C-alpha cells in the first residue's frame, strides 16, 4: 500500500477544503453575522491548512496509484471532507449536535439534500450558503477537482481515483490527459451553473434575489436539493419553477455529451442510448402523473408544471418540490393530510431508484445500469425460450462484454441489500413503514425527500442520532457507488500481506 501518496493527496484535499471555506466566510462578512460566525469558518480553515501542509511536507517518491488505493483515497477523502465540513455548523451553534451537523454536511456533499433542520428560515446566510455550496462541490467531486490542479504524475495514471469518485459503471476520459479531462468537466459545470444563475436572477421572479438565486442554482447544479424556504419552491413564480425543472434535467445528463456537442460531434450524442432512455422515462412519468393528478389542480398548466417539476427533481435526485405530494406533511408543527394519490407516490418512489445518467452530478442507480439490467433480463428470457440462439447485448450499438454486465448485476444486488439493511436498522426508532423505506432509499439514491414524515416539507429530525449516522454512511456509500466505502471497512484492505 502506497501510504505516502494517499497522505499526500489527502493533504492537498484539506488545503482545497480550506480554500473553499473562504467563500462562506466572505458571505458571513458581507452579512455581518458577528464574530461567532466568522470563527465558525476561520477555526476549521486554520485546522485544515495546518494538517494539509503537514501532510504535504514530504513528497512521495512513488506516485503510482493502484485500484485499491484509488478506492481508499475516495472513501477516506469523503469521510474527512464531512468531518471538517460539519465544524462550522457546530461552532456557529445553529446545528450544535455532532450527529445532526454530520448528517447535514454529508447530505450536502453527497448532493442528497435531506435536512435535519426543522426551520430553515432560522439559519444564517453563511450557513445556508455553506450547505448549498457543499452540493456544488460534491456534485462533480472533490477529487476530480484535485486531479484538475495537481501536476500530472510522470509514472502512472490517476485513473483509479477518477473511477472511484465518478458516478457510473464505465468511466472514461474525454481527452488523453487526465488533467485536461478534469478541467473540461469542471468548465462545463461552471458554465452551466452561471447560465442557470443568470436565468433565475434576471427572471421576472421578485422573490429570486441574488442570494436566493445562488442558493437554488448551487442546489440544482449539484443535484442536491437544500432549500432556504420551508416549502421549497412552492411559492415561487411558475417561471422559476420551469427554469429549475429544466436545469435539473440538464444536470442529470452525462457531461461528456456536452463535451461532444462542444466539439461538434452531434452524431455521437444521438447515438447515446442512455439519453434516449432518460428522456423516455421522464416523458412517460410526467404523462402518468398528469393523468393521475389532474383533478387536484385547477388548470392543465399547473398539473403539467407540478408533474414535470417533481419528475425532474426526483429522477435527477435533486429533491426540490413545487407541491406537497406526500400523504401527510408537517407544516408549521401541524400535520397536514392530503397530497397526491398513492399511484403517483409509488411512481415517485420507483423513479427514486433510477437516478439520472452516469457521468452527471446525479445519484441513484443510473439509467445506463437499468438499461443494461433490462436488456440482460430480456436476453435471458429469450435464451430460455430458444437456448441455441446467440445474441449479443449491445449498448450504444457496441457490444458490451460479460464482465461489465456481471459487475452491474452484482452492483444492483449490493445496492438493494444495503438499502434493505439500512431500512431495517433505522426502523428501530419506531417511525412508520413508508417513512423508513423511503428515507433509506432517498439516502442511498441521494435524492433527499422521501414520503410521509420525511416528505418534501418534512425533515429527518424524526430519527435518532444513531439512525442519522447510519443514514449518513448510506449517503456516502450511495454517492461513491458503494465500493470505496465497503473497501474501507473491509479488514482485508488493511492486511499487510494480500
Amino acid at each position: 500500500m502506497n501510504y505516502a501518496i494517499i497522505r499526500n493527496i489527502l493533504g492537498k484535499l484539506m488545503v482545497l477544503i480550506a480554500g473553499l471555506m473562504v467563500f462562506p466566510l466572505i458571505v458571513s462578512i458581507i452579512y455581518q453575522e458577528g464574530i461567532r460566525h466568522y470563527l465558525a469558518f476561520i477555526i476549521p480553515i486554520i485546522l485544515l491548512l495546518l494538517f494539509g501542509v503537514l501532510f504535504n511536507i514530504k513528497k512521495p517518491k512513488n506516485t503510482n496509484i493502484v485500484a485499491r488505493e484509488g478506492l481508499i483515497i475516495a472513501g477516506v477523502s469523503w469521510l474527512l471532507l464531512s468531518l471538517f465540513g460539519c465544524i462550522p455548523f457546530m461552532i456557529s451553534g445553529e446545528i450544535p449536535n455532532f450527529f445532526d451537523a454530520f448528517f447535514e454536511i454529508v447530505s450536502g456533499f453527497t448532493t442528497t439534500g435531506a435536512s435535519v433542520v426543522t426551520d430553515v428560515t432560522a439559519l444564517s446566510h453563511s450557513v445556508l450558503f455553506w450547505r448549498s455550496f457543499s452540493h456544488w462541490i460534491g456534485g462533480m467531486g472533490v477529487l476530480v477537482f484535485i486531479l484538475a490542479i495537481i501536476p500530472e504524475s510522470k509514472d502512472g495514471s490517476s485513473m483509479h481515483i477518477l473511477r472511484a469518485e465518478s458516478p457510473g459503471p464505465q468511466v472514461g476520459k474525454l481527452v488523453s490527459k487526465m488533467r485536461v479531462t478534469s478541467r473540461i468537466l469542471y468548465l462545463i459545470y461552471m458554465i452551466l451553473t452561471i447560465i442557470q444563475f443568470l436565468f433565475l436572477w434576471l427572471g421576472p421572479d421578485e422573490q429570486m434575489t441574488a442570494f436566493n438565486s445562488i442558493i437554488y442554482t448551487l442546489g440544482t447544479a449539484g443535484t442536491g436539493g437544500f432549500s432556504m424556504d420551508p416549502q421549497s419552491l412552492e411559492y415561487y413564480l411558475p417561471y422559476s419553477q420551469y427554469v429549475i425543472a429544466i436545469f435539473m434535467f440538464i444536470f442529470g445528463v452525462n457531461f461528456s455529451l456536452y463535451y461532444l456537442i462542444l466539439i461538434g460531434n452531434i452524431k455521437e450524442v444521438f447515438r447515446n442510448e442512455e439519453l434516449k432512455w432518460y428522456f423516455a422515462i421522464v416523458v412517460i412519468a410526467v404523462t402518468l402523473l398528469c393523468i393521475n393528478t389532474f383533478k387536484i389542480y385547477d388548470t392543465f398548466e399547473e398539473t403539467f408544471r407540478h408533474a414535470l417539476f417533481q419528475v425532474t427533481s426526483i429522477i435527477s435526485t435533486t429533491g426540490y418540490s413545487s407541491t406537497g405530494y406526500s400523504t401527510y406533511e408537517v407544516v408549521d408543527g401541524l400535520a397536514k393530510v392530503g397530497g397526491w394519490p398513492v399511484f403517483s407516490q409509488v411512481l415517485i418512489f420507483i423513479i427514486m431508484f433510477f437516478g439520472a445518467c452516469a457521468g452527471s452530478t446525479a445519484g441513484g442507480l443510473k439509467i445506463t445500469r437499468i438499461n443494461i439490467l433490462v436488456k440482460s433480463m430480456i436476453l435471458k428470457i429469450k435464451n430460455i425460450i430458444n437456448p441455441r440462439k446467440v445474441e449479443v447485448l449491445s449498448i450504444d450499438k457496441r457490444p458490451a462484454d460479460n464482465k461489465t454486465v456481471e459487475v452491474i448485476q452484482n452492483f444492483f444486488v449490493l445496492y438493494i441489500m444495503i438499502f434493505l439493511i439500512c431500512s431495517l436498522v433505522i426502523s428501530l426508532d419506531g417511525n412508520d413503514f413508508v417513512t423508513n423505506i423511503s428515507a433509506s432509499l432517498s439516502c442511498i439514491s441521494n435524492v433527499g425527500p422521501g414520503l410521509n414524515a420525511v416528505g418534501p416539507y418534512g425533515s429527518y429530525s424524526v430519527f435518532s442520532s444513531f439512525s442519522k449516522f447510519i443514514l449518513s454512511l448510506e449517503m456516502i456509500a450511495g454517492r461513491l457507488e458503494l465500493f470505496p466505502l465497503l473497501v474501507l471497512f473491509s479488514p482485508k484492505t488493511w492486511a499487510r500481506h494480500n
Partner: protein
Amino acid sequence: MKIVVIGDGKVGRAIVEHTCQEGHEVVVIDNKADVIEELVNQYDVMGICGNGASYEIQSNAGVDKADLVVAATSSDETNVLSCMIAKKLGAKSTVARIRSYEYNNQINMMKRDFGITMTINPEKEASLEIMKILNFPEAIRVDTFAKGNVDLVELYIPENSPLIGQSLASIHQKYQVRVLVCAVQRNEEVFIPTGNFTFQAKDKVHITASRSTVKQFLNKLGLIESKIKNVLIIGGGKIAVYLGEQLLKSKYQVKIIEKNYERCVELSQILPNATIIHGDASDQRVLDEEGLTNSDAVVCLTGIDEENIIISMYAYKQNVHKIVTKINKTSLIGLIDSINMVSTIAPKEITASRIVSYIRATNNSRGSNVITLYKLVNNKVEALEFKASEKSKVLNIAFKNLKIKKNILIAGIIREGEVIIPSGDDMIQAGDNVIVVTTNSYLDDLDNIRE
C-alpha cells in the same frame, strides 16, 4: 504534440511509456479490450478499442489532428494500411513498423508511394546494433554519432586494470590520449563524472572519442582483443536473418542453431553460406557438439528471454569472449547485468528511442535539432547529438564562461569531421554537431543546457 499509437504490443508499449513520460498527448488504439484497460490504468493516455486500420476508429482517435501516427501492430500489412489511412485523414507524419524480410527491398518504394514518413524495423535495427558490438568486441555497447565518426563506448573496468585509482587528467599525461568519460555505472548508481573522478574496479564507464582514439586508448591499456572470426547465433528468427546476412557480407563465419525444422530449411535458402543446425539450443549437449566453446562470439536470439539468459550464462562459463543476448522484458536486464561483459539488446527499446528522437527533432523544428538519441543504462542516461543552429544562444561562449546545468555534460563537438573533446577554452560554433550526455530527461533544444 498529439501522437496516436496503433497496436499496443511490446514496441507500442515502449513508445507509449517514453512519449507519455515526455508529456505528449497520446491516444492508443488496440483491438484487445483487456490490453487497453490495463494500459489506461497504467498510463495517462486515452485508449480506444478497435481495428486501427479502420477509418472510423481513426477519426474517433482524432488522427486528423495528430502530429504523428505510429503503426506498430504485429502485422506489416495492417501497419501500412493504417498509415495510408492516417495520411488521408490528415496526420502530419506517419511511422510504420515493417519487419518482414520479404518487404525489406521495397521499403523505399512503399515510403514514397504510400505516404509513409518513416519505416522502422526493430529486428533490423537490433541486428545493426549487434553488428556494431561484434565489430568492437572490447566494448559492452557501442553507439555512434556523426555518421560513425564518434563512438560512445561502454567499457567494463576489470579488477586488474591499470586504470584503477587513476583520474582522467593523469591518464592523459600517462598515455597521451584524450578520451572523455561521460557516464559511469557503479553498483546500482549512475552518475555523470565531475573533474575529480577516478576509476574503480567493476565500474562500467561510457567514454566518447573518435574510433581511432578509442582503439589507441585500448591498445595502450592492453585491452585489445583478437578480432572475431566466427559467430554462433542461437535462434533463427528475423534478427538472425538480418544479422547473418550482414555478418556473411563482412566475411564472418556464421552458424545458426534453430529448433524448428521448417524454419531451418527457410534459413538455408535465405542464407546459403551460413551453417544451419537443426537442434534445441537449450540442450547443453547440442551446444557443446556445435562448438560453443570454440566460438569467438555467441549471440542469443531465441524468443524466450529466460532461455537467452541461461545460454549466455553457460557461454560465459565456457569462457566465450563475446556474448550478446536479446532481452525483451526490461525488468530482466538487471539479472544478466551482474555478469559483466555480456551485452544486452532490447529491440523494442531501440525502436522506441528512434521514435522519441524523431519526435524531439520535429517538436523543435526552429532551434537546434536532435539528430540522434541513445538511451543508456536502463534508460537512466540519455546521449543526444544536436546540430547547433545559427540562432542558438550558446554559440561562441567558451565553456568555462558558460553556465551549464547540473547533470549535463558536453561529451564532444564535431566540427568539419574533426572530433573535439571539449576543454574550458572550447566553444560551440554554428554548424557544429554537439554531443550532450545527461541524466535529466526531455532535453530537446541545445539552448536548454544553460542554467
